């Protein structure tokens, strides 16, 4: 049995969990916390592999690939933009721009679907969650950065960069058009440097409040001038760039943006900032003691700030499996939704009212965090309305698609998706469900305890379930019990 967090000697806290402490409970915890949750087969596999090998296996980089027809839609988007430029009449021009923006929104909606589809694949889910974590640090919003090219670039870059050394990651993302637009970098010039990006780099991406001066922001902002978006890609505009001498963190030089990032990572706070964000996202919303955090930061710095090293250390550590952190984290809407998809071998239905819309109702509009700080998380995910939305979303996973009543566009989506290679079911049928749960009352109860819930149920709840199922449960009763379990307060926790 792993020790409570406070009982682990500090030098052992980030060491891999001992073989003797490793078992199916820890494997399920790994699947739920590092990923979105797993099936019984995956629990067995992870139990066998142990945490480090599981990290190697499940975090193998996975590109975010888009179907070919995206290219046509993007071409349409560009050509409408071109067309609009050539029109002199103001009204007419705006009409074309409106049409273009509509096409843009549709592409982003399809991108959301593709992102969810990839996240729902057991092979890519771990990476997807890690990218979601990084996007919660390097926040952009789809309404402010509304060009579909930028959004695609941002999410594809996340998939490509999520294992790099973090300073390199920061350099890459300071050139992402979506980020440049979201934090006004594309308007920052030598004459009028805009401090928005420089401030968030220091406050929200790399160091944290209290670890820099207002002057550091002012000077750093000058180093990031002259960045522009051209043809939906980053471009350096030399005439807008301030190549003068800047003093950042007491160091004088003709620093450019990349050099400022290198200086930032020489600050002690850079060692602990991202690890503390990762702990908040994956482990606990309560801050952990300074000493333990500082030790993790030092270990990470020795590993060259590599993102893959950080996550492997965290997800293998004794701290990660301390009992304090089991069943104590409220799943975000995306985690709840994608987790349930994975546990029942589903994929998202290609209908916004079964994907984007329920996520929004539960309080997490995909690609649109509330502000630059990202999602608040924890108890902020829960109120009566959002709980009702969670229950509804679970119901939908067990509800067939009402094909006849769909709009024509939606029918096309459903047909197109069903024909796609490797497509999986959009909802759970009773037959499929029984393959997961088994048919007897004892099997179903064991499935609930061993696969679905992170904490053991108390006796009275167990009794209720057994009584509901009776001696020889019908498939309908089993379905009802499973749906109820997924809707229960217990399943909202990981």
């Amino acid at each position, binding site marked *: 049995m792993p020790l409570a967090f406070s009982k682990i000697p500090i030098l052992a806290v980030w060491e891999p969990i001992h073989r003797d402490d490793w078992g199916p409970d820890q494997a399920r915890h790994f699947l739920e916390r590092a990923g979105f949750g797993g099936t019984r087969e995956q629990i067995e596999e992870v139990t066998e592999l142990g945490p480090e090998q599981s990290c190697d296996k499940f975090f193998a980089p996975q590109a975010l690939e888009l179907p070919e027809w995206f290219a046509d839609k993007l071409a349409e988007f560009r050509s409408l933009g071109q067309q609009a430029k050539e029109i002199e009449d103001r009204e007419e021009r*705006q*009409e074309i721009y*409106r049409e273009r923006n*509509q096409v843009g*929104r*549709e592409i982003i*909606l399809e991108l959301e679907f593709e992102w969810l589809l990839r996240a729902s694949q057991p092979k890519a889910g771990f990476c997807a969650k890690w990218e979601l974590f990084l996007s919660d640090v390097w926040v952009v919003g789809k*309404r402010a950065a509304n060009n579909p090219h930028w959004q695609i670039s941002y999410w594809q870059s996340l998939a490509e960069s999520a294992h790099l050394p973090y300073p390199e990651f920061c350099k890459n993302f300071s050139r992402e058009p979506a980020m440049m637009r979201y934090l006004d970098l594309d308007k920052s010039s030598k004459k009028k440097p805009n401090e928005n990006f420089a401030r968030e780099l220091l406050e929200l991406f790399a160091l944290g409040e209290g670890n820099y001066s207002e002057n550091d922001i002012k000077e750093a902002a000058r180093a990031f001038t002259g960045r522009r978006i051209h043809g939906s890609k980053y471009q350096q505009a030399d005439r807008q760039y301030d190549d003068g001498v800047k003093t950042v963190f007491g160091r004088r030089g003709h620093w450019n943006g990349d050099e400022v990032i290198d200086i930032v990572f020489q600050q002690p706070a850079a060692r602990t900032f991202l690890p503390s964000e990762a702990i908040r996202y994956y482990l606990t919303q309560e801050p952990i003691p300074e000493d333990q955090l500082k030790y993790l930061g030092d270990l990470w710095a020795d590993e060259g700030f590599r993102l893959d090293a950080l996550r492997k250390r965290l997800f293998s550590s004794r701290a990660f499996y301390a009992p304090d952190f089991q*069943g*104590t*984290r*409220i799943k975000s809407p995306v985690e709840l939704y994608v987790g349930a998809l994975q546990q029942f071998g589903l994929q998202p239905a290609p209908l*916004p*009212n079964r994907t984007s*819309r*329920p996520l929004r*109702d539960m309080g997490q509009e995909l690609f649109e965090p509330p502000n630059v700080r990202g999602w608040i998380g*924890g*108890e902020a995910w*829960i*109120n*009566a*309305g959002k*709980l*009702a*939305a969670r*229950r*509804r979303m*679970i*119901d*939908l996973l*067990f*509800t067939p698609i009402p094909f006849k*009543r769909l*709009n*024509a*566009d939606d029918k096309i989506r459903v047909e197109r998706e069903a024909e796609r290679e490797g497509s999986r079911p959009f909802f759970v049928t009773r037959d499929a469900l029984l393959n997961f749960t088994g048919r007897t009352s004892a099997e179903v109860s064991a499935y609930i305890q061993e696969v679905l819930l992170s*904490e053991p*149920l*108390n006796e*009275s*709840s167990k009794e*209720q*379930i057994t009584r*509901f199922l009776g001696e020889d449960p019908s498939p*309908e009763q089993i379905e*009802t*019990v499973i*749906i*109820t*379990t*997924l*809707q*229960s*307060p*217990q399943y*909202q*926790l990981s």
Partner: protein
Amino acid sequence: MSSESFLPRTTRREFIQAGGKAFGFLALSQIAPSFVARAAAVGSPRPDKDSSILVLVQLAGGNDGLNTVIPFQDDEYYKLRPSLAIPRNESINLNDELALHPSCGEMHRLFSDGKLSILQNVGYPNPNRSHFRSMEIWETGADPEDLKQTGWVSRFFDHACSGAPSEDPEGVYLTQQPPQVFDDEKFRNIYGASTGSRKGRGGDRALLESLASGPKTTQEPLHFLSHTYLDALAMDDRIAAILQKNRNTGNYPNSRLARSLSQVSRMIRGGLDTRVYFVSLGGFDTHSNQEGRQSRLLAELSGALSAFQNDLEKDGLDSQVTTMTFSEFGRRPMENESRGTDHGTAAPLFIMGSGIKSPLVGNPPSLKIGNNKDLSHEIDFRSVYATVLEDWLNCPSEPVLGRQFEKLPVI
């Protein structure tokens, strides 16, 4: 059941009447639904009973307006619709130039009795033909360019002259998903009632309650989750009790919309302080073989509206309720190759109630348009909202809609 003690089987009113006795319960119970706690703290009386109520009926998919309110004297109509035009002798005349679809007999009766108003040619500038976006525009009440995020009804709640605080839901919807009219950045007390058409699906209420009250722990966040859950379930109970107590005798047809509206009438009769109800009828996206489908849908609409109005009149509740239909867009005037119509723009809208002033507002759309072109709207949908807000809901419309829109002489 062990959890019984956690759930008060009282309504808010009964609870307040019980006074001190119930405080004992609060002190003993670790997990008391917070509406009970809040009501106990405020000790609030009910707001005035005569607050006006709005029922929104969404016609999802885009209803074909031209075949709903038919300009039967216009030759262009028959040219545009060689196979879909409704024959003159089948439609039901409203006056000497307009007629209703043959399925709308009951609506015609309401119209003749002065309880149904037809607003012609309602839409908005720079129309968007995406279901998703156009519905969003209607439900947020935004300019087509403006990506407003909150629903227009939600903004009404913000500006409504509120009576005493109530624990009843501000809005109730009877659709699977919450409509965007209630969207808000902050938490709103919006309740999703069962549409009653999905029996046998979903979890088990009693089992859920027992799981939620099972953990007698103070360990967070499970305690917090369980607490919030029991709160929500208590509201379910309350609504269920109201539906149980207020069975209606109304003669509703057997249709989904009728079932929804019958539930709304029971909740109104039960005295909920809710100001806005939302129901929906889907399937209007008639790209092919429109004739049969639209007939069935309009018959469902017509029958349900009329039964609802009759039911309300029986108890004199009709003076409290106005009902309004809307759809994300009308359809293309020119029929397509599949005996259907494609996404269009403006369309007529219906307002039903006992306080109707003018049965017919606006002019029929001009059909002298280019090949496969769309109608241009005459009445902005936000003018309709402004009218409903000011003349029915007693709320200034400008803060809700962002600017002044001309009101219509309807209510």
